[in-house]
Each structure stands twice: as structure tokens, then as C-alpha cells.
């Protein structure tokens, strides 16, 4: 199989910006993108820098962006990536898929996003690890001063293991971190990897640090800065529901009484208006989220929206047969109290 790659090259000592360099390589059928990178380094250009270790999807070292999407190079089939490159080019050119010959479009390989580049495909992971460490990604046992049984065995039942079984597969490969758009817009955001780690330890029955960890995550650049784009879940090579874990962290924080963040208030306002009328009260949402002063400071926007006829009513008219919804909500809450 002959394959053409455009690989991002960058040497900070000589280059101002990264550039794409083209390589044509001969590969055996079934080759992965990592094998292609090794082939390039071995036979075409020994100066190409990339990370790799295990070569079979366990170590998480070889994550790069291929055709613009972060994934593990060792788990990406070159043949599939060639097809994807052609299909993406068809969309860019505004033609149907069959009008772009498979193999005619190079496979693009670039370093992960949201990290500075050290050289070629190798990124600086310092901030990534700093954020992961911030959530104390280990099982925090009971306070040894207060708990004389601290050295006792801490058993875990199968149903308790099930809560963390998915998340323990995390490779810390940086794929979700690379793709997060909230992080691109706000670099101090703690990001999806650290949040998924925090969830994994917080829901573990052997851990007692739930409250302090959730408190740490309820700050300005914590869990409420996630924009729910689901790219983290979509791209995770281990299929971990990262956004789903962040959703659950929100619930855990809310249940711990950590409700002062505008994001938590925003969610609370939705529940309130659902109960009051069965629909969103769009007019009161900003006030309940950010308070009266913030809302008044946005008067100019409000006037513009009002002029376009887009201002929501101050009092939402309840949905028809509102009583049905009320009864469903009452029974759900009664059942939850019982449980």
C-alpha cells in the first residue's frame, strides 16, 4: 500500500511556525498511522519527532491529530484514514464522495491541540498534568487521626466497581484535552481529562474526599465551564463517557450544597421553571444565574433583543394540562425521597 502523508514539522530553534511536509511511504496492508510514522523516521527522515511506546493502545503516548481529529496513531488504520481524508476533501470541494479518488488526498498528521509544541508531533504536557494532579487523582482514605481503622481492608462490591469500571481505562493520552473548545477559549479551564479523573475517584466507595474535590472543581475554571459539546466523549479511544461523567459531577456538587457558581444556579433555574410552568422561563434565567447587577449591565443587549421581538415573556404561561406534569414530578420526588 502506498500512502501519502502531510506531517506537521516544527523545530523551535529554526522555525517560526509549523509547516506541513509531504512524505510518500510504502506500507504493508493493515498498517497503522504509528507504523507509518516509524517508517518515515526509519527510511525517509530521521529528524521526525513523535512519542510512542506500547504500540497497542495501552500507553496513550502516541496521540496526535489525524485529518484534524485527535486519536491514537497506533489504533488508526492508514487505509481508513486515507478514505476519511478523501471524504473530507469531497465536502470541502462541494462534490460527492465518488468524485474524489481515494488515495489522492494526503492524510494530515499534526500534534495534539491545546498544548504548546516542543518539536514536530511532540507536545508540552506540563499544564495537562498540573490540572490532572489538582484533582488529587488517587483514593483518599479516611483521616488517619480520626479513623483508627485506616489500615483496614477497604472492600469493593461488584456494583461499586461497575461505577468506575469504564473510567479506570483512561490512558491519560490527552485526546479529550486536545479537542476541548472551552479549553481553547479559556486556557485555565481544568478540562475534560482532570474532570473525568475527578469523577472516577469521587464515585469510588473507597474514597472520602468527595466534598473537598467537588469544592475544588466548583470554582471559576472548574466543571461548570464545560460547554457540553461532547467532543471528549466522541473522541475518547477507550469510549469513556467523559461529558457524561462531568454531568454527574455537577449533580454530586449540587447535592453537596455547592451551588454558588453561576453554572449551578443556571441549572437550578431550569429545574425551578420546569416545576413552575413546564417551560423555560428565559426572561428570569439570566437574573437567577448572575443576579440583578449583571443583568442590568447587559441592558444594551436586552434592548437589541427586544427590538427584534425576541424578548421572552416575564411570566411563562404554563403548558396545557400542566397538572399532568405536576403529578409526574410529585411522584418522582416522592419516590426519590423514599429511596
Amino acid at each position, binding site marked *: 500500500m502506498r500512502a501519502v502523508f502531510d506531517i506537521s514539522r516544527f523545530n523551535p530553534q529554526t522555525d517560526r511556525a509549523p509547516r506541513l511536509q509531504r512524505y510518500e511511504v510504502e506500507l504493508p496492508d493493515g498498517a497503522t498511522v504509528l507504523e507509518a510514522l516509524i517508517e518515515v523516521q526509519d527510511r525517509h527522515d530521521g529528524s521526525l519527532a513523535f512519542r510512542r511506546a506500547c504500540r497497542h493502545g495501552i500507553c496513550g503516548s502516541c496521540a496526535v491529530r489525524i485529518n484534524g481529529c485527535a486519536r491514537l496513531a497506533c489504533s488508526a488504520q492508514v487505509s481508513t484514514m486515507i478514505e476519511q481524508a478523501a471524504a473530507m476533501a469531497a465536502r470541502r470541494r462541494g462534490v460527492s464522495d465518488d468524485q474524489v479518488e481515494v488515495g489522492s488526498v494526503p492524510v494530515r498528521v499534526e500534534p495534539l491541540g491545546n498544548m504548546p509544541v516542543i518539536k514536530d508531533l511532540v507536545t508540552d504536557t506540563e499544564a495537562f498534568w498540573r490540572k490532572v494532579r489538582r484533582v488529587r487523582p488517587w483514593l483518599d482514605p479516611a483521616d488517619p487521626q480520626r479513623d483508627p481503622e485506616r489500615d483496614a481492608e477497604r472492600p469493593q462490591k461488584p456494583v461499586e466497581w461497575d461505577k468506575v469500571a469504564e473510567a479506570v481505562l483512561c490512558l491519560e493520552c490527552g485526546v479529550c484535552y486536545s479537542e476541548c473548545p472551552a479549553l481553547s477559549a479559556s486556557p485555565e479551564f481544568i478540562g475534560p481529562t482532570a474532570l473525568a479523573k475527578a469523577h472516577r475517584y469521587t464515585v469510588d466507595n473507597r474514597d472520602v474526599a468527595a466534598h473537598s474535590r467537588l469544592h475544588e472543581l466548583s470554582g471559576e475554571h472548574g466543571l461548570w465551564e464545560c460547554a457540553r459539546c461532547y467532543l471528549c466523549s466522541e473522541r475518547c479511544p477507550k469510549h469513556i463517557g467523559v461529558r457524561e461523567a462531568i454531568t454527574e459531577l455537577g449533580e454530586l456538587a449540587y447535592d453537596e450544597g455547592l451551588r454558588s457558581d453561576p453554572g449551578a444556579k443556571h441549572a437550578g433555574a*431550569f429545574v425551578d421553571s420546569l416545576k413552575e410552568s413546564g417551560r423555560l422561563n428565559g426572561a428570569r434565567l439570566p437574573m437567577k444565574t*448572575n443576579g440583578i447587577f449583571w443583568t442590568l449591565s447587559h441592558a444594551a443587549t436586552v434592548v437589541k*433583543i427586544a427590538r427584534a421581538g*425576541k424578548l421572552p415573556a416575564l411570566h411563562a404561561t404554563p403548558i396545557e394540562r400542566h397538572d399532568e406534569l405536576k403529578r409526574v414530578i410529585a411522584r418522582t420526588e416522592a419516590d426519590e425521597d423514599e429511596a
Partner: protein
Amino acid sequence: MSAPSDLSYAYYTGCVAKESTRELDAATQAVCHVLGIDLHEMPAAPCCGAGDVQEIAPRLNTAVNALTLAQAEREGRDILTICNICNLNLRQANAELRDDAAALERANRALSAAGYSYGGGTEVTHLLWVLYRDFGPTRLRAAVQRRLAGLKVAPFYGCQILRPSAVNPVDDPDNPQSLEAIIEAVGAEPVSYDGRTRCCGWPIVVAREETAVVMSSQILANAKHAGADAIVTPCPLCHLSLDAYQEKAERATGHELRLPILHLPQLVGLALGIPPRQLRLQGHVVSTRLVLSKLGLALV
């Protein structure tokens, strides 16, 4: 046009199309009327929770969406949504109720208080998917009265109609094509730009405005730079993010944008010959006049 009998839906407008984007509801009804897609409104259906209720009260969220699904099941119709967020939340709840017997039992205990039960028989779809997959670009092309020739339209999908792809099975989340197919079917030209599958930042625009505006401004700037006359989106929240907050995006980027943001049925409606005023193209924050003048139309 004769109505294909199978295209009949329980019409779930969602909250936003009844409040801040009433033009979306008006345009959807006008377009579906012309295409013979039957819509039956669901006036007793509650808010989908928008992901916020799911975040802090997941069981309540599932029960409330189960009520909507049960109302449609009783009518014997599938649900048509016009909002990415409604679509995802209803589909997530539906998947949970179908896959998790305990969740279905819990929801049905709650529904029984209102005289309902849900058997898992309702499908949830989106106007974009109906136009692309069920009605189809070929029939749409044949229904066009006024080709939108020369109009350069940047497709913007928004997140929650693409991801998670396990819940949103219609498009390839990294290389979708349904919006492009519709843009072509109405005679306009899809614009290629970096941003069509990005996140507009809407869910955090109230709680984290600065972060959200950086996200939306990059999309707007890229579409403008690629020569778009307008952006089209299937989601009213993406619309608000890109339209109502566009002035803030202009301030963030330091560039004038003035890029009209069309709802999907407004674009289709223009090609079907529906008057712009009926599509409520006057009801936007960023004026749509540039689009209309390019088509030789006025807001009459």
C-alpha cells in the same frame, strides 16, 4: 404537493421557538405545510430540561421526558424536534428508557400518577433529518420555486445533533453532509470553512460569557473570511449564540461581521417561494437584508 402519508409527526417546538426564536416555529410550520409534512403540536409537552435538569436532577429529567414520549406514543406519532438540544435530550431519555428496565419502571410509576404509561415506541427525529433522510434532497429540489442561486451559505451544525454519535446516528460527526445536501438542493452554494462542526458555546453563554463569545466569534470570523453571505443552522440556540451575541463577537475579534444567521426552515422556505415576512426574517438581531437583497427580495 401531495402529502406522503408517512410524514406525520407530533411537533415538539421546544421552549425557545415559542419565545426568543418564534421565527423558527413560524418558518417550520410554513415549510412543512408546503412540503406536505403533517405537524401536530404538543401543547402539553414539558421542557426537555436542556441538559441543565439532567445535570442536577437526572431522575426528574428522565420522568419529564418520558411524559413527552408517552404523549406522542398515545397519539401514535413520532416526535419531530426543531432544536438540537431538545432532540438530544429526548433521544438520550428514550435510549435510557429502552435500555434500562429499572429506569422505565421508575418512569412508568411516575407517569401512572398522570394516567400515562410508556412502552418505548416513540421515535424522536429532527427537522434536518426529516428533510435529508425522509423527504430527501431530490424531492426538495423538485419542490423549489426560486433557486437561491449565487447565495453562499456556511453550514453550521452545532454539537448536539452530531454528538454523541451513538445517540445521533444520521451524520458522520467529523464529516457531516446533511446541511450541505439541503443547501445544494435549494440552489445555494455551501461554503467550506473551519467551524461547521465546532461548538458555539451557548450552554455557558450566561454563566461563562467570555469563554462562550470567544467560541462563537471564531466560527463567525471563519465563515465570514470564507466568503459566506449567511450561516444556516438547525438549532435555535446556535442561532441565538451567533445572532443575538454577534455584536459581542465583533468586539472580541475587533472585526465587523454583520453575518445573517438563518434557521434551516427559513433557508428552505425562501426557496419554496414563501414570503420573507411569513418566515419572519425581520425577527433577527443581525439584519437579514443582505441575504434578501442578494436574492432580489425585500421584507414585504
